[in-house]
């Protein structure tokens, strides 16, 4: 039985990424080529003179913005993960005030726009407590925002672990802390890795909203360059590429981790 021609577009195993072989390389290049052609066509239809030199003069501003976005994202990732963890445990806590605090937190943050949260947090709450540093406030509000989502992801992950795992752990005499530490979290972490990675990528992109309180991160700096040079696309195309450059490693890294954590193999 000979193979049909369309078999070079198919793969056997849909559970894993396709293997590195000429066929998948060909497909990857093909799709990439089609997308590029599409973009090239769209841009060729554009009546727009590109003036890259104007933007090039501001390259250090782009780099500073990129650096600031990286720094803000890094701290926010860290803090939001800790907040997410604490509030997930709060939601699972036997202590009712902790439970309600965690529920209110999640519902309020998830139910309101980040834009409003940033404005209210910076101009009302932080102001009332005499915190005027917009970078510190920015990291705090971003962490609170992402933390709510991460806490829901972690909580759902904890809920997805079967009752017998808890009972077995308890029957062995593990403390509650040890149960979480050695039994539940290692399994939860593997399960929530994909949504967690997605959330971290969102966090990096959401950090651009801090521009409204004049945190000079990547997006604000690109917008400023646009304002100085009136070169919109020349400012925003590097912006998009810059974000891609920082978010792609996260997706890549999470895929790798997923593989490491797969119990089956």
């Amino acid at each position, binding site marked *: 039985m000979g193979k049909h021609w369309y078999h070079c577009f198919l793969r056997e195993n849909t559970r894993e990424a396709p293997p590195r072989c000429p066929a998948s390389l060909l497909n990857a290049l093909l799709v990439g080529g089609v997308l590029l052609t599409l973009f090239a066509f769209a841009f060729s239809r*554009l*009546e*727009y*003179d590109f*003036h890259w030199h104007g933007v090039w003069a501001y390259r250090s501003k782009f780099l500073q913005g990129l650096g600031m976005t990286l720094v803000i994202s890094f701290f926010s990732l860290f803090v939001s993960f800790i907040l997410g963890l604490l509030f997930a445990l709060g939601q699972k806590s036997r202590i009712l005030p902790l439970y309600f605090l965690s529920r209110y937190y999640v519902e309020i943050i998830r139910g309101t726009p980040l834009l409003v949260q940033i*404005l209210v947090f910076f*101009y009302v709450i932080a*102001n009332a407590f005499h915190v*005027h540093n*917009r970078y510190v406030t920015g990291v705090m509000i971003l962490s609170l925002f992402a933390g709510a989502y991460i806490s829901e992801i972690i909580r759902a992950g904890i809920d997805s672990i079967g009752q017998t795992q808890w009972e077995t752990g308890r029957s062995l005499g593990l403390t509650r802390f040890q149960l979480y530490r050695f039994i539940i979290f290692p399994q939860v972490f593997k399960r929530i890795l994909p949504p967690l990675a997605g959330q971290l990528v969102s966090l990096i992109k959401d950090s651009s909203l801090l*521009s*409204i*309180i*004049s945190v*000079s991160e990547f997006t*604000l700096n690109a*917008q*400023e360059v*646009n*304002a*100085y*040079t*009136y*070169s*919109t*696309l020349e400012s925003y195309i590097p912006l998009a590429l810059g974000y891609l450059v920082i978010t792609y490693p996260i997706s890549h890294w999470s895929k790798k981790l997923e593989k490491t954590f797969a119990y089956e193999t």
Partner: protein
Amino acid sequence: MKKILFWIGLSGLFFSGCLSGEKDVLRVGMELAYPPFEMTDTNGTPAGISVDMAYELGEYLGRPVQISNISFDGLIPSLKTGKIDMIISSMTITEERSRSVTFSNPYSKAYLALLLNRDSPVESVEDLNKKGRVIAVKKGTTGHLYAREKLPSARINVFDKESACVLEVVQGKADAFIYDQMTIFTQWQKNIKTTRAVLEPFQDDFEYWGIAMRKGDPKLHGQVNAFLLEFKKSGGFERLAEKYLSKEKEIFESLGIPFFFSP
């Protein structure tokens, strides 16, 4: 069958709405967030001095006018990519902008002014050019460009919205907000307890407002300049000032400060 015909007819209407008369409609872009020049009335229809001007221009050219509400820093890109035919949005003529668009002859002068925090030690624009001073500006405005060029020692925080700049000054996070005289005046009146204003002009030269058009259309440029001349001669600007700015004009005159909408 009838249903299908109905939908075909409807979609036809929809598409024709997009395409019809593309040739002669005059598409004017402005940010409807700067009363009384560019704003919307209570029904949400565009209104204000620039809007009236646009309709007068359309009448002069014999072309129907379509107003597009576009954020200020999106105006020039929209013009450059052909989404609109001109910008009438209280836009100051600057050298940098002139590199990417062509301006008509100026139709109005303008000044920058300062909104200051009540407790800030700043008294004049010179005081701002020091280490440790913080200035709030709205992104892409002449205030932003002025601060960047003339006040390099100060820290400049850039915002999307005028309201955020005002809040920064009110809360003392910034010493000053640099913006046009009329806005500063209105905001100072609104926040009289927490702010002060410097309304006297401090720039070496006035700012001039012009109508921006794409480069390389001398015919339209000529028509627009001819219209402005004609409109000025027939007292059109006085009529508009009377209609929209009578109260402000009076207050400014009583304060002895030159009023900016004076062609």
